[in-house]
């Protein structure tokens, strides 16, 4: 008997009991949709982490001055700029694990150019800032050595600033006024896109010295700076270096080991780890649900196939009387259970896609559909159909023709 004929006969008997077939495959439906959702959550989280690393650079720590407590009274977020360029040099000298540090001063101010004005954040830093922050140039160039040393009025702007001041025109060599001071635009950064909390492209970078002399002389007097981005040579050293920085900084600022520090170290990897961990927990949960429902679904199929075999005992006898071999009967029932589980697989894929779509829309949680998971679902559901369908099918095939024919 050819496969097509077997499939034809199988679908006939499944269609005659369509509700039962669908209910039987419920376990498979839930199992397969869990598998798909699980894999999507995992892939989505991994991609998000990769994307964040792409945006913020990997192995970076941010050291930032923090409001100090003056006799128990918090002085507010910008009350003290406790970090200095001296701290930066000291850290570089004391900790060989640090490969580069980009210092940063910043202010929020109005920019005027081309008859437009725009409020944005201006950062004063060095060329390391672009390397560590993973910034690429769409156009123009970095600062030159003499521009950094002489405090030239040159600026590199982000995409959002370009859009609001120049539209689609090239901003290179145009003059913009920052706090009424004219600067020449020498570079345009590639777009990074927004995060949930900030538009990274809404930025202007000028040389540190220029910023300190012309823009933030009052806010950051002397060699004070707002923060520094510290790059660690390898990710294994990240957490150790974070501790070392804390130790060195406490020594420099004469703060005891349990005293309230006037700085804070942000470790972006920590956030990423937490994000990965939570999606891992979610995946384990879903994997458990998937595993249990696939097994329960398989047992459900076995159960209903046993019922079917009993119900159709006489029919099996008729088929045997007209020449069905054991193999024909075995295949017939195996294909029926395979079809039930594949129906479940298809509906499960549909449900899984719905869940993925719903969750990513509603919770804004990044999920990525992996085509491997579709293949995996088919493999899962079909092997369950075959494994759990085998016992009932063998039971049917081993019936004695005359006993089956006489069964009432």
């Amino acid at each position: 008997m050819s496969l097509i004929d077997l499939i034809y006969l199988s679908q006939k008997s499944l269609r005659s009991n369509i509700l039962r077939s669908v209910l039987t495959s419920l376990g498979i439906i839930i199992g397969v949709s869990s598998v798909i959702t699980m894999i999507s959550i995992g892939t989505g989280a991994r991609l998000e982490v990769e994307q964040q690393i792409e945006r913020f650079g990997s192995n970076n720590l941010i050291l930032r001055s923090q409001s100090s407590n003056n006799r128990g009274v918090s002085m507010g977020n910008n009350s003290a700029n406790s970090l200095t360029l001296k701290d930066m040099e000291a850290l570089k000298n004391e900790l060989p694990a640090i490969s580069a540090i980009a210092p940063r001063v910043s202010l929020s101010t109005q920019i005027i150019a081309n008859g437009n004005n725009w409020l944005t954040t201006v950062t004063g830093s060095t060329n390391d800032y672009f390397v560590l922050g993973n910034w690429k140039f769409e156009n123009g160039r970095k600062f030159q050595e003499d521009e950094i040393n002489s405090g030239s009025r040159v600026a590199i702007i982000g995409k959002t600033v370009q859009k609001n001041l120049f539209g689609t025109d090239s901003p290179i060599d145009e003059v913009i006024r920052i706090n009424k001071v004219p600067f020449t635009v020498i570079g345009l950064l590639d777009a990074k896109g927004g995060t949930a909390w900030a538009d990274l492209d809404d930025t202007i970078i000028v040389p540190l010295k220029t910023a300190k002399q012309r823009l933030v002389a009052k806010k950051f007097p002397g060699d004070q700076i707002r923060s520094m981005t510290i790059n660690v040579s390898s990710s294994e050293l990240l957490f150790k270096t974070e501790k070392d920085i804390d130790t060195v900084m406490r020594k420099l600022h004469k703060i005891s080991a349990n005293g309230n520090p006037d700085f804070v170290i942000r470790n972006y990897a920590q956030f990423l780890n937490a994000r990965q961990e939570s999606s891992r927990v979610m995946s384990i949960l879903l994997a458990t649900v998937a595993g249990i429902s696939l097994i329960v679904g398989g047992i459900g199929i076995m159960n209903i196939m046993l019922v079917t075999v009993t119900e159709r005992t006489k029919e099996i006898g008729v088929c045997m009387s007209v020449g069905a071999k054991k193999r024909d009967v075995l295949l017939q029932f195996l294909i029926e259970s395979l079809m039930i589980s594949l129906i479940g697989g298809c509906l499960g894929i549909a449900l899984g896609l719905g869940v993925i779509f719903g969750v990513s829309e509603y919770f804004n949680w990044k999920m990525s559909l992996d085509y491997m998971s579709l293949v995996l679902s088919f493999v899962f559901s079909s092997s369950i159909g075959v494994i759990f369908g085998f016992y009932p099918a063998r039971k049917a095939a081993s019936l004695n023709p005359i006993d089956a024919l006489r069964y009432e």
Partner: protein
Amino acid sequence: MININAITKEYIMGDNKLLALNEVDVSIKEGEFVSIMGSSGSGKSTLMNIIGCLDVPTSGDYYFRDKNISNYNSNMLAELRNKDIGFIFQNFNLLPRLNAIENVTLPLLYSGKNVKERTKLSLEALENVGLKDRTNHKPNQLSGGQQQRVSIARAIAGNPKLILADEPTGALDSNTSLEIMKILNDLNSKGITIILVTHEKDIAQYGSRIIKMKDGKIIEDKKNVSN
């Protein structure tokens, strides 16, 4: 065609041994129309099931077309049933989900014939029993007589040498019974060997030879002179 030597069939029911056939010898030639008669429990159905390879004897030898099939395995028996034997049952035994032509095609599916050949043979068989216009009807849309004719068509679709009919008119009224018996007669006149099991005397009269059974033994075996 059929040679049965000292065939015995025992059933074990609890502690009791039931002897359904007790050293039965019988031989049937090609082209014969044999009626097997007997009351229920006489062993006539058991004999027919063994002849039809649906059941295997406890002891004894069975030669079908000069081959000893006593030691055939289940696959070989299935093939024999498929190619050489057609069955007609009292309660038709059609598959309820399949329409008339699909039911008739069933044995041809198992013999692995291609679609074209299958359709041709099935249509011919249905035409032979006068049901060419009912090919797409399901069994529950057909009368008892029509259902039995479908099952005859199924039995003859594969051009078997032997047809076994187990009380083929048992569920039918007398007029329909006559139609069915006429079809069987026609098939016999075309050279197909027919073995008919019945307990009705007038139905048995269609046979050219009548075998009477009682308590697992043949008590009478003679030519039907009235025919």
